[in-house]
């Protein structure tokens, strides 16, 4: 079985997010980027599936700053192959990214594509269903439980209030992963360095994208401050509030 996992870098939200000069997007030049945490869960689920049976895991990413390191880290965690797509915009919206990935992935004939259900900057949709549409595959997103048996993936999709639904998906299919069965594993730096010496990253060129439906982000800004919380400076003030509300 062949499992493809697209990986994407997103800004580290712990840092301040600087905007570009015309205020239509982030200024990526100074941003600290990291692997989208939901993609990390998708990769973990792929590696767990491989460990439970027999599968080849291929990590795929659009070329960009520090992408090699991200792909070598995926190999260190247990992916079998890493592929980099060149000549595409790594900060593109999901409609465009879905098309770039579909061009690259369709030739790999995957049985399963595991995608992080969302990423911090998603403004035009989810990657999994958009990618599935281009690949002509079924898809289910917000999945926390995945079990593959023959040509069927049995998945648990989360709803609100802790309710879940179980679906059988006929493969090949695309699954949007919310959380892996266990916390994503960590690859020690020494192992990543070692892989870096021995492994190679395959490169494929982004194919023709044709027309991509996009929405235009006209303005980005930081939320206005001021209308928010009354700031307290010591614990006594918190006690006062609790007493005032009749709970202490």
């Amino acid at each position: 079985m062949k499992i493809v996992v697209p990986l994407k870098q997103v800004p580290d939200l712990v840092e301040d997010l600087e905007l570009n000069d015309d205020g239509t997007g982030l200024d990526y030049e100074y941003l600290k980027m990291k692997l989208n945490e939901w993609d990390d869960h998708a990769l973990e689920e792929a590696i767990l599936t491989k460990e439970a049976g027999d599968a080849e895991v291929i990590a795929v990413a659009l070329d960009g700053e520090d992408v090699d390191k991200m792909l070598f880290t995926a190999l260190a965690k247990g992916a079998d192959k890493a592929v980099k797509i060149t000549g595409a915009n790594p900060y593109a919206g999901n409609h465009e990214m879905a098309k770039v990935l579909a061009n690259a992935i369709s030739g790999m004939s995957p049985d399963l594509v595991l995608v992080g259900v969302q990423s911090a900057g998603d403004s035009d949709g989810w990657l999994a269903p958009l990618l599935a549409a281009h690949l002509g595959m079924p898809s289910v997103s917000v999945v926390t439980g995945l079990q593959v048996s023959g040509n069927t993936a049995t998945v648990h999709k989360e709803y609100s209030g802790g309710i879940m639904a179980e679906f059988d998906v006929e493969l090949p299919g695309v699954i949007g992963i919310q959380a892996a069965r266990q916390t994503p594993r960590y690859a020690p730096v020494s192992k990543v360095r070692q892989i870096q010496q021995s492994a190679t990253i395959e490169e494929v060129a982004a194919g023709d994208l044709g027309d991509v439906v996009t929405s235009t982000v006209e303005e980005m800004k930081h939320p206005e401050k001021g209308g928010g919380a009354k700031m307290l400076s010591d614990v006594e003030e918190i006690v006062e509030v609790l007493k005032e509300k009749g709970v202490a």
Partner: protein
Amino acid sequence: MGDILVVAEHLNGQLDEATFELIGMANGLGNTVVALIGGTDEMVSQLGAASKVVKVDAAADFNPESYGAALGAVADTVNPQVVLTTGSSMGMELANSLSAQKNWPLAVAATGVSANGSVKAQAALFGGKIIATTDLGSGPCIVAVVGGSAPADAGRKEGSPAVETVDAPAGAGKVHFKKLIMPESADVDITTKDVLVAIGRGIGSKDDIEVAEELAEALDAAVAASRPIIDAGWLPKSRQVGKSGLKVKPKVYIALGISGAPEHLEGMKNSSTIIAINSDKNAPIFDVAHYGMVADLFDVVEELTEALD
């Protein structure tokens, strides 16, 4: 001005509150038509604030594939300017499916929509740290709206709107609904507590949850949490507050080390009083909190617990 197509959402035989929020929003934009897929006549009678309901007879249980195809068929008969879906696990599947089927532009995580000539959506992105305005053109287009973005009362009205029925398309038939899995009964019901002590990523480790439990004990409160704590397996799912967890409205909600991502805010922003303690002064939680303190949560919690004893 074109029609606004609201996609109704239901689970377990009940219309979701978010459906009424969407109808209220839609009525401010144009003529509201509701798409009801797999719903009942009883649900139709609750959609009196819409001018028309387009109904597809389908299985009562949501299926991203067949419901997606059904929405495509409804959109063909309505020809809407804007399609509004919820931002939930179901609504997002339908919004994406429709965008892919029709090549219509889509904006997600929306908290507001306007349609004066061109359709514009406002959204909270990057964990709520950025507010973006997206131009979707003159329509048709799709907007997935975050729960709680508009009052539900404005769109909730008994009545008997005109009903048109559309046949369900065959669909690809590759996704099969098996069953609903209800949550295990909880040791503590966090929706009934007057006070909640909620922890987020800032708590750092499982062992440190103890300090939150001690504070909770001093306040006769329960410990709740944001998603990362549940995913890490540190607390059971029954303690999760937010979009995919529970919605809570305690008298006092104390948020410890919770940044305030939109998914979390959806579950707690209607609490009577919110007190947030976070070491990041820019954390979005301070925008919804009534009281805030920029501090190390462990210092505060320890001192607070002592002061209350």
